[in-house]
């Protein structure tokens, strides 16, 4: 007997970040439709930016998202520099690259940890967040704060990376490399995780292209695009690195992409530290002439895009932001439908949306029988139990 049940997820949940509201329609165990409603964190940033001076906007866009709190400012300063035709000193470009790559490291580790939690591998979560602290410490040393770094500035950067911090930075990168090797072994070679993640939530290359997916979500489906290489900004064209792609498009491929990208980030940071020229870090622009400018940057989740129109005053006439999750959301239609509910959690998490689906404020009630079906906690439990079952079947032991 076919039996449709609607599961509301959200909007408020305990574990992480922004409230979003998902509505899953399920038939038995299988998801047959999904709907997303957002807007619970709408803060009117674009409009607010139009009332602020260019200098303040950088701090405002930094607070669009706490995890990408370098990508947005980079895109923003690039848009303003584009409009004003402002040159940026070389040293500032290298510093921008270093901070952006450190951000990628911290963001990918954060994702890895949360993905581990959703699967019931809380050890992975604790590990990932433990080694993320190395990166946070580096941030604190270089920029003065663990989050919201306030490094970007129109025409350069706010602070220099002093020579005395360089050895610490290199040591931090070596420590991170060791942690990465451990993750690579623990996550990629684990047969249970493989069984759990391989072949689920597949986003085909055609779908990735037609939904215009961005970042790791598209690169895991074999779409070879990366703003850092295709339209280089900061110092990405002066260092050697590779764009990582995978063909499979499943959740496992997305995890592989993120882990391998972290190796690239470490290598980029090390090269930047070596090649960084001496000199000024700021070209001190005086005014922004009337005109338009665009800037984009590859955030950990994909391309962020900023547009400004200047009318010659000290604040923009129009400000526009497009964040990557906006493009990645609709891919759920292609990935979640047809999968089981216990897999839905990790598939939703796989695009690394500025997070979701951990706790639900409402309970699904079956309309006919008035019986409770699933709450958010139940969904995570379902997901964790599946891992446990698989673990037992494959190793003969209980997962603890």
């Amino acid at each position, binding site marked *: 007997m076919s039996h449709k049940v609607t599961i509301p997820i959200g*909007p*408020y*949940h*305990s*574990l*992480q*970040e*922004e*409230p979003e509201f998902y509505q899953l329609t399920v038939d038995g165990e299988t998801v047959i439709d999904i709907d997303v409603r957002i*807007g*619970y*964190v*709408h*803060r*009117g*940033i674009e*409009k*607010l930016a139009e*009332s602020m001076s260019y200098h303040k906007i950088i*701090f*405002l866009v930094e*607070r*669009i*998202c*706490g*995890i990408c*709190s370098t990508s947005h400012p980079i895109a923003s300063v690039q848009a303003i520099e584009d409009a004003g035709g402002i040159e940026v000193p070389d040293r500032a470009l290298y510093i921008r690259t270093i901070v952006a790559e450190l951000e990628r490291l911290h963001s990918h580790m*954060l994702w890895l*940890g949360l993905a581990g939690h959703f699967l019931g591998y809380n050890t992975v*979560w*604790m590990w990932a*967040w*433990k080694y993320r*602290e190395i990166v*946070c410490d580096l941030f604190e040393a270089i920029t003065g704060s*663990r*989050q*919201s770094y306030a490094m970007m500035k129109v025409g350069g950067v706010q602070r220099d990376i002093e020579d005395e911090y360089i050895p610490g930075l290199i040591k931090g990168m070596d420590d991170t490399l060791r942690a990465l090797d451990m993750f690579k072994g623990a996550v990629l070679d684990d047969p249970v995780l493989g069984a759990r993640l391989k072949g689920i939530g597949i986003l085909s290359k055609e779908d990735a292209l037609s939904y215009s997916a961005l970042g790791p979500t598209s690169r895991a489906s074999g779409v070879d695009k990366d703003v850092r290489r295709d339209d280089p900004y900061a110092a990405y064209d002066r260092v050697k690195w590779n764009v990582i792609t995978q063909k499979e498009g499943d959740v496992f491929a997305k995890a592989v992409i993120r882990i391998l990208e972290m190796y690239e980030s470490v290598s980029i940071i090390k090269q930047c530290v070596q090649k960084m020229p001496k000199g000024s870090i700021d070209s001190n622009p005086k005014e922004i002439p009337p005109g338009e400018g665009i800037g984009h940057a590859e955030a950990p989740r994909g391309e962020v895009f900023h547009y400004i129109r200047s009318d010659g005053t000290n604040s923009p006439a129009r400000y526009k932001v497009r964040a990557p999750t906006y493009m990645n959301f609709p891919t759920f239609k292609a990935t979640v439908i047809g999968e089981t509910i216990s897999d839905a959690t990790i598939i939703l998490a796989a695009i690394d949306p*500025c*997070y979701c689906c*951990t*706790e639900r*404020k409402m309970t699904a009630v079956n309309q006919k029988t008035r019986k409770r079906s699933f*709450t*958010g*906690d139940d969904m*995570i439990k379902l997901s964790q139990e599946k891992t446990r079952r698989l673990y037992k079947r494959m190793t003969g032991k209980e997962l603890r």
Partner: protein
Amino acid sequence: MSIKLKALLKSPWVFHLCSGSCNNCDIEILDCITPRYDIERFGMLLVGSVRHADVLLCTGIVNKLGESRVKRIYNQTPKPCLVVAVGNCANSQGVFRGSYACGKPLDQVIPVDIYIPGCPPKPEAIILGVVKLIEKIKGKKK
């Protein structure tokens, strides 16, 4: 001090309520339960449902869409409960003040017991804030 409040202070269970924040405060709250800070050793536990919570950690500006829901969540929390406003957004709406999406500040929507400033506050600051709150309530008894 009522017996309920006394029991609550022994091992406060925390629910993290985010409504219109930029995630930074939320990450720092999560950081508190990971190995570096590990507040679970003091009996503080992040819980998945507000019905199990003793303390609400609120972040973000509470936008117009979220206002009624924040109120509802507060009403669903078993009383007595403590409300902690984490970050400048929850304290005073921070950089977003004046935006058309901002509703009322958090402390006009639900009663707030303690404010932790910072954008974002460091995990140490969040822990210190909660400890101060507990001491304040215990101090009342004397």
